[in-house]
């Protein structure tokens, strides 16, 4: 698999997304505008609290806004690359018996999973909202925006995405063994951790903060990386903690997913939902 071929696949899925968007342009515009509104609404509650109390747990109100922007950017990137065709929610494909469709394509599975979810036209509104909010927060905080800082944001976002995918694939491994029971497990794995991620953990007791950056890594999805980007990683921990966590999680997810996949090709599955594959 060459880089050129990979780019061709991304271009293919971008084109398919564009074609899909144009087929029902009026409803697509409505959906995108609604999404913009819901993206803003999703973070407004926490930001208004921070505004009313002039910050939360030692975080300035615009630091809270930066954290909310970071989380919106992360979920925006996830939506852009992995929300479509269930590449991020892989337990659905496995549970629906549709993983086998991937096995008849002459493309490595990892490349299929990386490219099939790419929807730059219908799935970029959240990312754009996040970037706009981040620009506002950065301006209000008066942060010096250097190339290094922008790269640090990009690197942190990539690590956070790796943590989200790591969790999704780790739990999705169960769908190889129990397709019916675990078909929606990736949604729960992502959403349950995600719900708490837009709340600043600053000011909470350490015994609550620690589990939330280890066992349930909600704090690693926005709070920890934002403070690290502001140059003050919490709890005196190194700023590279999310990276370390992502590496361990990815290794674990990879081992268990491969093990589950081996089980799948040995035992097979009787379940197949004919809703069009990738659903």
């Amino acid at each position, binding site marked *: 698999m060459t880089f050129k071929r990979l780019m061709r696949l991304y271009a293919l899925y971008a084109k398919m997304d564009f074609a899909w968007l144009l087929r029902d342009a009026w409803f697509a515009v409505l959906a995108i505008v609604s999404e913009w509104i819901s993206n803003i609404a999703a973070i407004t509650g926490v930001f208004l609290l921070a505004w009313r109390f002039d910050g939360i747990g030692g975080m300035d109100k615009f630091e809270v806004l930066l954290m909310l922007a970071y989380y919106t950017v992360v979920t925006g990137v996830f939506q852009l690359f992995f929300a479509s065709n269930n590449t991020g929610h892989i337990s659905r494909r496995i549970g629906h018996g549709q993983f086998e469709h991937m*096995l008849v394509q002459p493309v490595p599975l990892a490349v299929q999973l990386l490219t099939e979810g790419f929807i730059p036209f219908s799935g970029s509104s959240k990312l754009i909202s996040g970037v706009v909010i981040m620009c506002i927060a950065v301006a209000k905080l008066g942060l010096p925006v250097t190339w290094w800082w922008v790269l640090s944001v990009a690197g942190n976002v990539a690590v956070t995405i790796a943590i989200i995918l790591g969790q999704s694939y780790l739990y999705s491994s169960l769908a190889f063994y129990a397709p019916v029971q675990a078909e929606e497990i990736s949604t729960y794995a992502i959403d349950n951790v995600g719900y708490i991620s837009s709340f600043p953990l600053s000011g909470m007791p350490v015994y609550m903060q620690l589990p939330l950056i280890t066992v349930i890594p909600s704090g690693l999805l926005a709070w920890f990386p934002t403070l690290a980007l502001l140059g003050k990683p919490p709890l005196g921990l190194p700023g590279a903690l999310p990276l370390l966590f992502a590496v361990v999680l990815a290794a674990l997810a990879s081992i268990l997913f491969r093990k589950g996949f081996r089980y799948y090709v040995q*035992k*097979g599955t009787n379940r*197949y939902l004919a809703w069009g*594959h*990738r659903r």
Partner: protein
Amino acid sequence: MFKKGPTGTSHGGTAVSAEGVTKIFTQWQRENAGKGVLKNLLKPDKKIITALDHVSFSIDIGEFVAYAGPNGAGKSTTMKILCGMLLPTEGEITVLGMQPHISRIPLMNRIGVLFGNRTELWWDHPVSQSFEWKRVVWDIPDDVYRKNLDIVTELLDIGPLLKTFARELSLGQRMRADLAMLLLHSPELVLLDEPTLGLDVVAKRQMIEFLKKLNRESGVTIVVTSHDMDDLEEMAQRILMIGGGRLAYDGSFEGLRGVTGNLSRLSVTMPDGIALEIPGGRLLSTRNGVYEFEIDLAKHPVREVLYRISQIPDVKDVEIRKAPIEQVIAELYKAWK
């Protein structure tokens, strides 16, 4: 048409080879009431199912082979093993000289797989978009793609379907579109699992004629499964018959008839209450004026049978069809004993 290979029935090279392939599945047994519910939790019963039991066969390049058996006989399991979706519990499989589970990617560039109850088409896109997707994902050279697209569009008459969403196609249309997409990369071997399942007479005929032409003119090796003997006999030159996970017969259809006879089912519709006798026929059932007989047409030529029926007054309808595959297999086992 497509990748030009030698034509005819057998060309020396081996397309598929299976050696002692066994596939065992485990099925959990659940009880619904009483102590059984507790047992489900603590120690559920396990049922071992041998889907394939030391199956061995070889298919030459250019052959058109029917892989037949009743429902649950292991046909789909074999197809899945051949394309690397399942691993055999025991035995060796080689497809175009490759082991499917090891050489999945190069193998998928050279074979085409279609399961009748599944579609490879993109559900929410027009058929032409799925074809375009196939072109990029399979990295099909433009000239090959254009040529193949023209051919399948004409032969499968899918021109009017190209702009239709896959989810809006009828079953017959979907199967034609799926088959067309399957052939765009010029596969050397085509594996079809129940491609005629659920198709009406016209769609079935179109599919069968196309497959025969594909094999005859392009030398594409085709392995097709079905539980419908009539369809298979019309398409293939050789039949592999599987029953209870074991290979019950491997040879020509004529050879099969030599062992089991030409077992057929004869249905005669006429008013109730007439004692109808057909020479050589065994009455199986009478319902609503339909008399169903079992008859071996190898021993009792169809001409004689029809002559006898023509002498009966008030006959409204006559239908002759092949005996169900389960019965043919049962006869095979009986013949061996």
